[in-house]
């Protein structure tokens, strides 16, 4: 057994391209992902953005606006939304807008605030909302004050303290209560992690190429090596098991390298549950291996064709589990869930996702068990195909 194992190992590692695709390629991809996605989560947050205020006569007279905008532009304040530029006239503001120095500017003309922006967008919408809110507060104050004064006049009070009413109302309008409560906050919301999980899935499934090559070395109809081995007086089961073991070992080495790279250099967050992570990677590797053995034995095609099929299946699986666009996984999961229920790449990705995002392990186990079933079915089919294969001549 050890004899077969070492020789299978030697012949596998002699194939340089195999080593590139299973070991180096996922790491190179991880490196690219890191560059492309490192800023996404930060950029997703609403940042302080620059706006300009045209300081004309009307602006200088409008105290409510001045105060409200000032609070929203105050540095180090928690409510800060804007970084403020003040310009003396509209031309200057227009110039800033043209040069994309600001998102938009505010100008008060004929008692009406007006916003000028370059294009539609989220910051522009926020800007509009904020100004609308301030304007709304102003209107409400006026509305409530007139109402109060009318009431008091109806009651026959003649000495109306206008100043007092105005101040009261202003305060009540600007008072901000808390209207919402966060539900058990989850800090694990970095959805770019899915990309790295699909990468692990890809590495697991590329292991199929290893499995297939190992099997091909044993098949009389695939290689001269296979012919030679087939006539040797060694039990076929023994050879298959040792070859598969070799492929599995090679695959696990590749996975360890990939994990090390993503953990230490890219700092991918796999969650804290170490044993489940290892188990999932192992089961994933097993699924990849059985896929390779299955394609290797069941399909009677050239080695190149089989390789092409494996790569295509892997990439398609990764595509459905979100490698080329994270939302794809969600779309498939909700619209055609069956696809990702039988897609090993998605099972692996979803398993890691479950570990990262959910505190319970139920979903994780569903994925692990699915992967085990997937492997058992494929291996059973391969065994049936491999049994009693005999050639009088070839």
């Amino acid at each position, binding site marked *: 057994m050890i004899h077969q194992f070492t020789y299978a190992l030697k012949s596998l590692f002699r194939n340089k391209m195999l080593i590139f695709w299973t070991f180096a390629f996922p790491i*190179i991809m991880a490196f690219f992902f890191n560059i492309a996605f490192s800023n996404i989560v930060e950029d997703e947050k609403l940042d302080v953005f620059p706006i300009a205020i045209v300081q004309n006569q009307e602006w200088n007279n409008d105290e409510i606006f001045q105060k409200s905008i000032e609070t929203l532009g105050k540095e180090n304040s928690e409510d800060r939304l804007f970084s403020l530029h003040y310009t003396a006239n509209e031309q200057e503001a227009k110039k800033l807008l043209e040069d994309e120095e600001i998102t938009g500017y505010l100008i008060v003309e004929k008692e009406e605030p007006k916003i*000028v922006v370059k294009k539609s967008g989220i910051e522009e919408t926020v800007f509009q909302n904020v100004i609308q809110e301030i304007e709304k507060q102003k209107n409400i104050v006026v*509305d409530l004050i007139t109402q109060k004064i009318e009431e008091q006049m109806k009651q026959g009070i003649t000495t109306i303290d206008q100043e007092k009413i105005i101040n009261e109302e202003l305060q009540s309008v600007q008072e901000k209560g808390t209207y919402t*409560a966060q*539900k058990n906050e989850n800090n694990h919301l970095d959805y770019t992690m899915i990309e790295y999980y699909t990468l692990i899935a890809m590495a697991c499934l590329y292991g199929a190429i290893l499995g297939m090559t190992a099997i091909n070395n044993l098949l009389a109809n695939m290689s001269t090596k296979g012919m030679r081995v087939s006539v040797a007086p060694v039990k076929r089961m023994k050879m298959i098991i040792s070859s598969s073991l070799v492929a599995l070992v090679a695959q696990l080495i590749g996975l360890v390298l990939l994990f090390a790279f993503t953990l230490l250099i890219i700092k991918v967050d796999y969650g804290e549950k170490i044993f489940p992570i290892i188990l999932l990677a192992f089961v994933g590797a097993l699924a990849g291996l059985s896929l390779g053995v299955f394609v290797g034995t069941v399909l009677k095609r050239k080695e190149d064709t089989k390789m092409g099929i494996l790569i295509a299946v892997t990439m398609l699986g990764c595509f459905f589990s979100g490698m080329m666009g994270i*939302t794809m996984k969600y779309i498939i999961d909700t619209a055609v869930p069956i696809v990702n229920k039988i897609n090993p790449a998605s099972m692996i990705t979803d398993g890691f996702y479950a570990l990262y995002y959910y505190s319970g392990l139920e979903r994780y186990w569903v994925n692990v068990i699915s992967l085990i079933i997937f492997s058992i079915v494929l291996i059973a089919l391969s065994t049936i195909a491999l049994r009693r294969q005999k050639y009088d001549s070839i």
Partner: protein
Amino acid sequence: MIVFNYFFKILKQYKVMIILYTAILVIFGAFSLNTNDTGTDFTITKPDICIINQDKDSGITQGLTQYLTENANRKDIKQEEEALSDALFYREVSYIITIPENYQTDWLAGKEPKLIIQSNGNYEASLAEMLTNNYLQTADTYRKNNLEEDQIIEKTKQALDQKINIEMTSNLNNNGLSQANFYFNFANYSILAICIFVVGMVMSSFRKEMIKKRTMVSPMKPKNYNRANFLGIIVLGVALWAVYLVISMILVKDVMFTLHGLYYAINSFIFTICALSIAFLIGSILQNKEAISGVANVISLGSAFLCGSFVPVEWLPDSILTIVHILPSYWYIQNNEYIKTMEEITWESTQPFLMNIGMIILFIIGFLLVTNWFSKRKK
């Protein structure tokens, strides 16, 4: 002619590969088309939210949901814990509001009930939060002034319906341009991958030892042989570019038939030629087909990720953008980005465009010189 024909015979073997990369481009191109903001008027951005109402649909509850339905995209998510959490994680929705039972009555009684929120903290969530707070704060102000319930809802609605003037300076069809931009940025990947892979494979077939020896003893002049080969490569590139252009005309037709579209077409044409020159270089250096496929993948994916053809350029770290000046893809994508922002097309505004084109042409010359030097040395 024999060499030229044979070139395309070999090419046929790789049609699946060409179709696959093109299909990916089309899928992604079409995927970016799902926004509906087409006009030159300002359109508000609506955050994706989900409302779970456990209260009766009347009074403040109704007012709030109505307001949010108007100002946000309400999505229907299966009301199960897991489905909701998934939706939040994958940014299907960014803000989930649960209105608890008896919210309306508690609120009227001044008990200050709270909405239960799940948020993923991105800008859409911030905007949704802003909208929710805005509504509730306004309603609260009226409630504290002892108004009747109907009046509160009515007045709140009135107060929030007042919109201020917003003016947009850009007359560009920003949406169409973004789509065209996305398409051509993504094409950077497809063009590079196909050119390097296919040209590499064909060249490697021609340079198999037996075939090379056979052509060398044939009476055909090496010059003619090279010319036929070169012509094959050029025809392949131009055909590929033409197909991609036609696809773009279907996907983003309102941009492609304008001057902006012409600029996109010119830019992608020059880049295709550049991709061919890279392919030519790699085909001259490498013989092993598997190695060519590895290099094709690394170069095309690398350029795509590093220069911003998959994710928007503004999301890339500045340090990376400085380094990738040495890649032609950078200039191609920068040029696309520039075309997107061209307000009016004049000689002056065209100059930066030509600068970028010039850079790509320099790369082409560079690659051809290196190829030349390499093949001479090899002989």
